[in-house]
């Protein structure tokens, strides 16, 4: 049962009887309104008496706030309030973002609005509220802050040097977290290995650039003391909990609503200082307050990620067996660890994931996470995976080259074989079941590998330099409480779904995991339709409302399909059972004699339709008098699911990139990209394909274009979409996606996550392809983003 399956070849056993939707490329019917301009994003909402807030943000990397002059701004037309950090702190507690399972981690107290000091360019200091956004911005121009510039810690390379000033003197140093992992005998392996390859890999800090900026509307009703927050967010229950704790409100008095979210990618799963400040203003002013970040604010205040430098080496014997990996990772996270998930997770993941696909037994890793005066970093799509994968796969290619072994054959030799599971990776990660061998075979066929190598060789003779790069990968999905809960963060790893049969026969599903565009509502409708036994047109999905849905974690760590989907399946199956029991009572038949097919109760023996759902609904809700007194009608059921068998369910896949490097200009043309993905049961191939492609393009962005560039004083030089390059359609290749299906046995559905593997593998595949193209020149580039300039420098042309 639990073995890899080709999607095209072997169909998996169905999850439900009469399965019509699960596994099919069903369009997202609920998304039609988005194509007609009828979405409801936060900025589309307008409320009576609504105030608009804009923030005066620190213009420098590190400063002491001496005095704030706001009298002129207060006199401007339409201004409702000007609030500073001292006033905000009277109602909003500061926070320190650490997790107890990351031993020794430290950070400093952070306020909603900076008090005394601001520690990065973009930290909010003063809030200006007016009756329109334009008037708030007019008044903002008249805020004058006297400040004294303080020395800034900019480079992570010198952050721990004794002469470097301390950002938070009370912490004793600029070190947030460090970790060493040593599984033993690493030095011996490197001393005796026939082949040792090493390199230093650099990764530029980049950010999510959601097309819809971060935004929220906070509305506090002084009458009943209830707070309602409309938020473009991934984790509404997490925000509910944080608002109630920071403002001393009762959980039941905080209501968080997430309507349409215009892209999130991890950017919108954190609690930002301006989130709390906007809520604080609503409480102080007793009226709705809207905050919508402009693009400059997005670049300086959305979390950044992935500023790493990793020294890595690999030991291999002459037969081509990988013996050991060793890495030393240095990463910088800004001046504070981000609330509440913390900023040490990304580095920690790198330590856990390096070498992930391979069967070596020896591994040592060192990690240092340091503070600096730049925008805080935190979990962004892929979280550590793109770093770990690029380091691993870059080293794997270096070793294959030294061995003069084909890089694909070298991987095929070294991946953990498909029949070895369950097992543990060298870093200690628990792997339930993966399909590296089958994925490698699939991609070899898919890209016509042999022929592609021949084409490459032929063109190389003509002075056309093309390269082929591979990246085998694992991805952490379906997390248990091991991720955050055990560290003391009140972030739910379980999720719940409620299934309800409405009087008309429509099935309504309420789920804790929301929709950010990836199609979660679409797959939930597919699951519910099959599990209850109705047309998908008769299913309604409701998400993103803490007052309505069961308590859950929301969208992160690729958990929507595997955790949320399983909750929907369990709830819908339970609802089907209850419907059958009710039908048996109405029809005075035995439950075992009845079936549900397409909104009808069917006689199992004859196939005759006995009772439509519309009748069930009518009797259950309006004619309970016709039912026996002792019969309990429950047409609304809730089920929860949490991952318990493993800390995480890992997925795997492989990507290949085909590029052409112009050695005179350094330009990289992406010719084609292939991905084979194993996310367990594929619930909707069309949606998964597009998830994978979108994630790959995000990974390509980091590999080739995207970087938050800072000057020596810690000022962001490219905080706009014209200077910060994101991938556009013209530079992107066609991306071919195939699937291998190895369901997880930890759930009935067997689905694993698919949201981040694309981002995990793409940078490594593209980097390896570029280095393969540069092979004749005997140069390599390991410094992402791999810009034309870096390629030309590597080639010695500039």
């Amino acid at each position, binding site marked *: 049962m639990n073995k890899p399956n080709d999607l095209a070849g072997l169909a998996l056993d169905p999850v439900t009887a009469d399965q019509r939707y699960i596994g099919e490329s069903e369009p997202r019917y609920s998304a*039609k309104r988005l194509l007609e301009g009828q979405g409801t*994003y936060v900025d589309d909402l307008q409320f009576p008496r609504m105030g608009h807030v804009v923030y005066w943000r620190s213009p420098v990397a590190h400063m002491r706030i001496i005095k704030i002059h706001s009298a002129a701004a207060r006199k401007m037309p339409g201004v409702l309030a000007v609030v500073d950090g001292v006033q905000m702190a009277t109602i909003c507690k500061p926070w320190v973002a650490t997790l107890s399972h990351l031993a020794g981690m430290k950070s400093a107290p952070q306020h909603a609005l900076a008090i005394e000091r601001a520690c990065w360019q973009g930290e909010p200091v003063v809030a200006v509220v007016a009756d329109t956004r334009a008037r708030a911005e007019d008044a903002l121009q008249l805020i004058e802050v006297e400040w004294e510039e303080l020395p800034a810690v900019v480079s992570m390379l010198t952050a721990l040097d004794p002469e470097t000033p301390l950002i938070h003197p009370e912490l004793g140093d600029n070190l947030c977290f460090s970790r060493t992992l040593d599984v033993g005998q690493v030095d011996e392996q490197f001393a005796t290995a026939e082949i040792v390859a090493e390199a230093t890999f650099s990764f530029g800090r980049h950010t999510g650039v959601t097309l819809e900026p971060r935004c929220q509307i906070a509305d506090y009703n002084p009458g009943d003391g209830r707070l309602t927050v409309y938020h473009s967010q991934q984790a509404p229950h997490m925000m509910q909990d944080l608002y109630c704790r920071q403002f001393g409100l009762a959980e039941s008095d905080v209501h968080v609503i997430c309507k*349409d979210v215009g*892209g999130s990618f991890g950017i919108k799963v954190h609690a930002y200082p301006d989130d709390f400040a906007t809520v604080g203003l609503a409480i102080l002013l007793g009226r709705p307050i809207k905050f919508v970040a402009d*693009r400059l604010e997005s670049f300086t205040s959305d979390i950044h990620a992935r500023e790493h430098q990793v020294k890595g080496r690999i030991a291999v014997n002459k037969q081509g067996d990988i013996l050991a990996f060793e890495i030393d990772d240095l990463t910088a996270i800004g001046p504070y660890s981000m609330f509440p998930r913390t900023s040490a997770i990304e580095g920690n993941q790198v330590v856990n994931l390096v070498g992930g696909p391979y069967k070596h037994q020896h591994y040592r890793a060192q990690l240092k996470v340091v503070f600096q005066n730049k925008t805080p970093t935190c979990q962004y799509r892929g979280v550590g995976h793109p770093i770990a994968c690029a380091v691993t796969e870059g080293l794997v290619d270096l070793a294959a080259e030294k061995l003069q072994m084909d890089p694909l054959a070298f991987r095929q030799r070294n991946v953990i074989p498909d029949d070895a599971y369950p097992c543990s990776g060298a870093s200690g990660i628990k792997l339930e079941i993966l399909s590296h061998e089958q994925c490698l075979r699939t991609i070899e066929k898919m890209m016509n590998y042999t022929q592609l190598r021949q084409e490459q060789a032929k063109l190389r003779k003509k002075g056309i330099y093309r390269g082929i790069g591979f990246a085998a990968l694992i991805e952490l999905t379906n997390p248990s409480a091991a991720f955050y809960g055990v560290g003391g963060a009140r972030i739910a790893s379980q999720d719940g779904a409620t299934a309800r049969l409405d009087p008309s026969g429509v099935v309504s599903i309420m789920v804790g995991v929301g929709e950010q565009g990836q199609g979660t509502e679409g797959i939930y409708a597919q699951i519910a339709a099959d599990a209850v036994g109705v047309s998908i047109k008769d299913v309604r999905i409701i998400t993103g409302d803490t007052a309505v849905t069961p308590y859950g974690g929301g969208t992160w760590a690729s958990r929507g399909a595997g955790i949320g989907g399983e909750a929907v399946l369990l709830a819908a199956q339970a609802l089907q059972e209850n419907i059958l029991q009710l039908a048996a009572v109405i029809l005075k038949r035995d439950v075992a004699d009845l079936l549900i097919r397409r909104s009808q109760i069917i006689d199992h023996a004859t196939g005759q339709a006995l009772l439509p759902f519309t009748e069930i609904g009518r009797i259950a809700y309006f004619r309970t008098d016709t039912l026996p007194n002792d019969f309990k009608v429950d047409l609304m059921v809730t089920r929860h699911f949490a991952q318990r068998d493993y800390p995480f369910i890992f997925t795997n896949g492989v990507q290949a990139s085909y590029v052409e490097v112009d050695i005179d200009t350094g330009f990289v043309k992406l010719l084609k990209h292939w991905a084979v993905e194993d996310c367990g049961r594929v619930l909707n191939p069309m949606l998964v394909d597009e998830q994978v*492609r979108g994630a790959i393009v995000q990974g390509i962005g980091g590999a080739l274009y995207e970087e938050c560039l800072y000057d020596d004083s810690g000022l962001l030089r490219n905080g706009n979409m014209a200077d910060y390059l994101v991938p556009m359609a013209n530079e992107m290749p066609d991306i071919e996606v195939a699937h291998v299906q190895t369901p997880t046995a930890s759930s009935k559905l067997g689905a694993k996550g698919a949201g981040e593997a694309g981002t995990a593998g793409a940078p490594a595949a593209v980097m390896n392809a570029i280095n393969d193209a540069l092979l004749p020149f005997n140069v390599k580039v390991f410094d992402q983003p791999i810009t034309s300039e870096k390629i030309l420098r590597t080639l010695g042309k500039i």
Partner: protein
Amino acid sequence: MNQKIPIEMIVNGNTIQAEIEPRRHLVDFLREDLGLKGPHLGCEQGACGACTVRVDGQIVRGCLYLAVQANGKVVDTVEGLTAQGVLTALQNAFLRRNAMQCGFCSSGMLLSAAELIEQRPEATREQVREWISGNYCRCTGYHSIVDAIMNVLEAQREQTE
């Protein structure tokens, strides 16, 4: 700042008269004053294309175009073009190919694609990629958007053959 200028324009077929500040951008006027929330604000500097609307039949960036510039002109947004049926084939293709995820770029992307289909009926896949390169989509990876637009172009070519 407080000076207001009278303007008149046809928005989605309706004559609109208003007095507005000269600094007001067309997209803000459409969204805030007329309640047309289809065009979105992504970057407010003309880079992302989420605010794309039509003025006198030609697509413009609603965030770079002042509302007073549209005085006496015909303005169409995704809402109006949907009602007129101008976008139907594209919208169906986008839904069928899942050529959107979060939907924030979709109104701009559809208006750009509609202009391509009108002006470049013979466009190749590469030309489609180039044409929509003024519209940023962070979710899809563009592949499905290109597929959807190609589907509409191909269907149109088959019809005219």
